[in-house]
């Protein structure tokens, strides 16, 4: 890693942090269903997916920790809430099952496009990790795709809930592709083989044909400049929860 130019290393750190925070935060929200999912089978599935996401977050935080000579747990649990860099799509709690399916569909498809690009990264450790993550994310995609179809093709109540959630979340979903500091350098060096606008275009062409028959016309909204810095009361609550024990005693190990 030391062979990276400082500016490029800093840009890579931004990319790793954004991706890790996405996985970390959705991994927490998924656990909201633990014990209370609509069916026991879905309880097990959601917990399994949550573990995968936290496992991915850990691998990314560890890569970042190596790059910045820090500690992965300190990065994950030691920041103030405004220092997290997850996309605004992940600011929301799970709410109801349709909202969770809609959010997960939007996130998993966007993540899949991002991971496909990162698997071709010129930064070899990141390329290898992305390839490994893709294998697990494939199952997440299959799972959420099945639920999207099930709700869309099921009773009107479920379809309406799903459509409303997709419409509500659509603008925030764009923020998975919000511009990153140092993005130009990452793309130039092929650490990120394609720009965020290019990735977003690929994602839109993939999901629009599937989602518009469910949710109606989806507006063309650009990612927000503060798409990875905008925080909500819901995330403030979550941050308070996940730092509760970690911060309770200075210097303690757990």
């Amino acid at each position, binding site marked *: 890693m030391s062979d990276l130019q400082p500016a490029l290393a800093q840009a890579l750190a931004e990319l790793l942090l954004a991706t890790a925070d996405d996985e970390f935060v959705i991994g927490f929200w998924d656990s909201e269903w633990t*014990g209370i999912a609509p069916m026991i089978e879905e309880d097990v599935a959601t*917990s399994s997916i949550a*573990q995968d996401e936290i496992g991915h977050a*850990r691998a990314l935080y560890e890569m970042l920790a190596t790059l910045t000579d820090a500690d992965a747990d300190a990065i994950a649990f030691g920041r103030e809430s405004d220092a997290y860099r997850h996309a605004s799509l992940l600011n929301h709690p799970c709410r109801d099952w349709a909202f969770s399916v809609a959010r997960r569909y939007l996130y998993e498809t966007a993540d899949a496009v991002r991971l496909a690009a990162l698997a071709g990264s010129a930064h070899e450790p990141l390329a290898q990790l992305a390839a490994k993550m893709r294998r697990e994310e494939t199952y997440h995609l299959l799972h959420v795709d099945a639920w999207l179809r*099930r709700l869309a093709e099921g*009773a009107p109540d479920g379809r309406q809930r799903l459509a409303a959630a997709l419409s509500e979340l659509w603008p925030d979903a764009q923020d998975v592709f919000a511009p990153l500091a140092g993005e130009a350098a990452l793309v130039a060096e092929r650490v990120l083989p394609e720009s965020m606008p290019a990735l977003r275009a690929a994602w839109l062409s993939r999901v629009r044909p599937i989602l518009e028959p469910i949710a109606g016309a989806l507006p063309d909204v650009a990612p927000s400049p503060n798409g990875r810095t905008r925080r909500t009361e819901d995330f403030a609550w979550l941050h308070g929860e996940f730092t509760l*024990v970690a911060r309770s005693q200075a*210097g303690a190990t757990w």
Partner: protein
Amino acid sequence: MRYAETRMNDTDVIQPLNGRPPYEPGDADAFYAHVGTGGKVEADDWMTDDYRAAVLKFVEMHANSELMGVLPERDWIMRAPTLRRKLALTSKIQDEVGHAQLLYRVAEDLGKPRATMLADLLAGKTKFHNVFHYPTRSWADVGIIAWLVDAAAIVSQQALRDSSYAPYARTMRKICWEESVHVMHGRDVVLTMMSGTDAQRAMVQEALDRWWGPLMQMHGPPTDPAKDKDLHWGIKAKGNEQLRQEFLSIYVPRIREIGLRIPDPALRLDETTARWVYTEPDWDELRSVVTGHGPASQSRLEFRRVNYAATQWVRDAIMGNAAAA
């Protein structure tokens, strides 16, 4: 000729893998002699209604306990203080839900639909284990529950690997293996805190002080083996007091070894009888707690009721029940 009659007289009929049980369908005495001497019963074997009802009640309470046991630990998934702990706790709780799923399947095969079992649980008609009626107060509870509550459960569950009801026995083999991983996770959480600050050690001691009473009650009051039909029919292989003694034999030394004090001044091993002597557990508390009067019984059931109602539309949408509405 009806199928049942054909099958009874036809020696060429395909037999289940385990073969035909050594008793004639309808012969209750032969059936009880079979299960009373270590014989096994499969889901499709003939069994008496009393035996079926007793196994169902036992397995259903176990399934309920796995499901309700998720709730005390659930809040701490969000509060796990490191990435490693977060992963371990999420995995443990997923295991518990998975155990509930396996056990409800065993129970379903005995003739009670899962929806009815969940409805009875939510209505307070069926029970779950005493330890899941108590609130959790600190991260130390996560360690004590995973270490000692799961250890006490393993002692029971290992004995259930020999249950006369074979599908239950097989399920227990898988569950015991996973529970042993939970115990290691719990012990590691506790050990890490005991090696930490004074405040962390005090947290663990405070948690043990609160959980010791429920732990001692967990296996239930001693029963008369002659009158304990679950024991008599081999549904469970060991009596309550024997299980408690086994738990104490293994865990009292381990608890003391790491510097924790067990909050029972009367607790000691009687060298002459090789049995643990202890202050009589509060059996009134146990009876009260398992009938829904524990400190967290109603809040946990209400939490589950609210969420079950809130997700009813999903089940309806999938089952097509709402399509006609």
